[in-house]
């Protein structure tokens, strides 16, 4: 009687070990991924904390970018992402409205739009850079110069507007997907109630559905800005400058950006040890901006999960 009992208990112990080791192993893997994130954050924060000051944020680079601040890079990134949003959000929201409110779900056009959105999201960012140079800068910009400026190089060069439009194409899927989720979350009864009150489809979209989904649309915009602010490869050949003496004021000005500035400091500096603090400072500002935006987006999304009308 004692032998089988013993055997049973060892077997149950073995079973216990199996469960426990898988539990521990998977927990360790999770911890490691969280540590990767924490590692980057801590390293950049510690390296950059001593550098980032009001002076660093508000002055120009000096002495071949081995001293001074990053004002033009901050301003350039802000101008770039603002212009990008102006293009990407209307296009993205209209696409999402088309997909949820106008298109028949199994229609050929809607399916093609979906395929193209998924495709856009998967294209490597450097390919967007190649495209932006070939299409926006050379073809479109060159064409504008021939037509309106008698061939004088005005828009046929890498500049702010082409970089912003290239980024807008890259971030379009982010806006579409987030907005579509938000529109689908608007309860059906609201649409029906609006129609029953005599509203047309357009009135329903403009006065009921879009206001109800504004949290989701905002989230999409924030995620797009966060993504766009961190991208370097697509703007490398379409507008960003190694150094620009003036802040960009026209659509055809070159500009500096935080990401590209960090890349330049990391690879093309004559004196790496002297630029390293500046590099950490730039990386910290960029990381801080994208991170803050991401966290706001997460918070917004969590809030918008709670239904505003008590529907479920």
């Amino acid at each position, binding site marked *: 009687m004692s032998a089988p009992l013993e055997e049973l208990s060892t077997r149950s112990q073995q*079973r216990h070990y*199996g469960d426990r080791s*898988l*539990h521990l*192993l*998977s*927990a360790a*893997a*999770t911890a*490691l*991924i*969280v540590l990767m*994130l924490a590692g*980057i954050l801590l*390293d950049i924060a510690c390296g950059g904390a001593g550098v980032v000051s009001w002076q660093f944020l508000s002055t120009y680079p000096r002495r071949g970018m081995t001293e001074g601040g990053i004002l033009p890079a901050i301003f350039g990134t802000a101008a770039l992402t603002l212009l990008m949003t102006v293009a990407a959000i*209307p*296009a993205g929201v*209209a696409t999402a409205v*088309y*997909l949820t409110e*106008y298109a028949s779900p199994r229609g050929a056009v809607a399916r*093609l*739009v979906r395929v*193209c959105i*998924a*495709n*856009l999201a*998967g*294209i*490597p960012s*450097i*390919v*967007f*850079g*190649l*495209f932006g*140079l*070939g*299409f926006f800068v*050379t*073809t479109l910009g060159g064409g504008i110069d021939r037509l309106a400026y008698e061939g004088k190089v005005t828009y046929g060069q890498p500049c702010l507007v082409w970089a912003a439009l290239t980024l807008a*194409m890259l971030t*379009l*899927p982010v806006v579409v997907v987030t907005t579509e989720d938000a529109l689908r979350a608007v309860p059906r009864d609201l649409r029906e109630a609006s129609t029953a009150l005599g509203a*047309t489809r*357009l009135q329903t979209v403009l006065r009921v559905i879009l206001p109800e989904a504004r949290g989701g649309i905002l989230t999409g915009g924030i995620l797009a800005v966060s993504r766009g602010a*961190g991208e*370097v*490869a697509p703007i*490398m050949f379409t507008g960003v400058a190694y150094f620009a003496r003036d802040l960009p004021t026209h659509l055809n000005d070159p500009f500096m950006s935080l*990401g*590209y500035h*960090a*890349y330049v400091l990391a*690879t093309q500096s004559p004196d790496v040890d002297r630029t*390293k603090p500046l*590099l950490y400072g730039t*990386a910290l500002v*960029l990381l801080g901006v*994208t991170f803050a935006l991401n966290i706001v987006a997460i918070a917004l999304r969590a809030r918008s999960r709670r239904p505003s009308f008590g529907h479920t």
Partner: protein
Amino acid sequence: MAATSLTKIESRGTREEPTIAVSLRRRTRWSEAIAEGVIKATALVSILSVALIIAFITKEALPLLLSADVHREVTPLDLLVPRSSGGFVWQPVSAVPKYNVLPLFAGTLKVSFIALAVAIPLSVLAALYVSDFATRRLRETLKPIIELLAGVPSVVVGFFALVVLSTWVQRVFGTEHRLNAVVAGLGLSFAVCPIVFSISEDALRAVPASYRAAAQALGATRSQALLRVVIPAAMPGIAGAVVLGFGRAVGETMIVLLASGNAALLDVRWGHSTRTVTATIAQELGEVVTGGPHYRVLYALGALLFLATLVINILGEAVIQRMRGTVRATR
């Protein structure tokens, strides 16, 4: 002036009421139609974008196949088969330019392989933890944290790899070059992990609870149920996650540009400096003559990259879609 127009409106309002109602309705219909037209036209932007990207990358790359001018310096065959003197070398800026692309593709595969070798086990195990071991509350915290990793700009990850990971790798493995395929691969795994994690976690959570209950009712332990029932059931989704993670790795530019060392040699040794397709385009496009042979070759590399990621992504999506179908069917 104002008074007259006011009376006009009033008189209209009283005498011609029916016509006004009709015209109003017609106007709303018009504006409705215009708005619908605008929305539909804007929705086509995505289709137009993809079409333009394909058209213009092809347009810039095509002379490599067709133009005799370009062929004087490089023919499409030169990309694959080494010229008599050169061997497998990518050296476009030299007295005799050499355009063999095999070192670049080898570099891309090498770096992606390291990234996946690190990211797959980590992310799939983490997905298993979050879907099956973590409490609901912990899951709600961990998921956004891991997905935040995807929000770190790749140039920042590249910088981190350049400064911190390279030192660690050299200390641990004693590599010959400070920047090499291992450093780039580790850096790249930071970008791949969040993708593989979130798709795998979705896949694991899509496996119905009844599978777990049935396995345990038959006497399986929790780990047996997970390893022999739940993971196999979620396998297509996990495979899709891996394929999409591979697509991300192949397309990533800034991390490998900063961390790989950028030596374009056909070299199988892990600890040696290497260069990928994306990094080559990023590094060289700024310095080439527009329309020259080198420019055409870089666009051709872009076209190949586009095609490769397209195929990889379609494959990944197809695998995931099939998984959704089978899980739903058995539910």
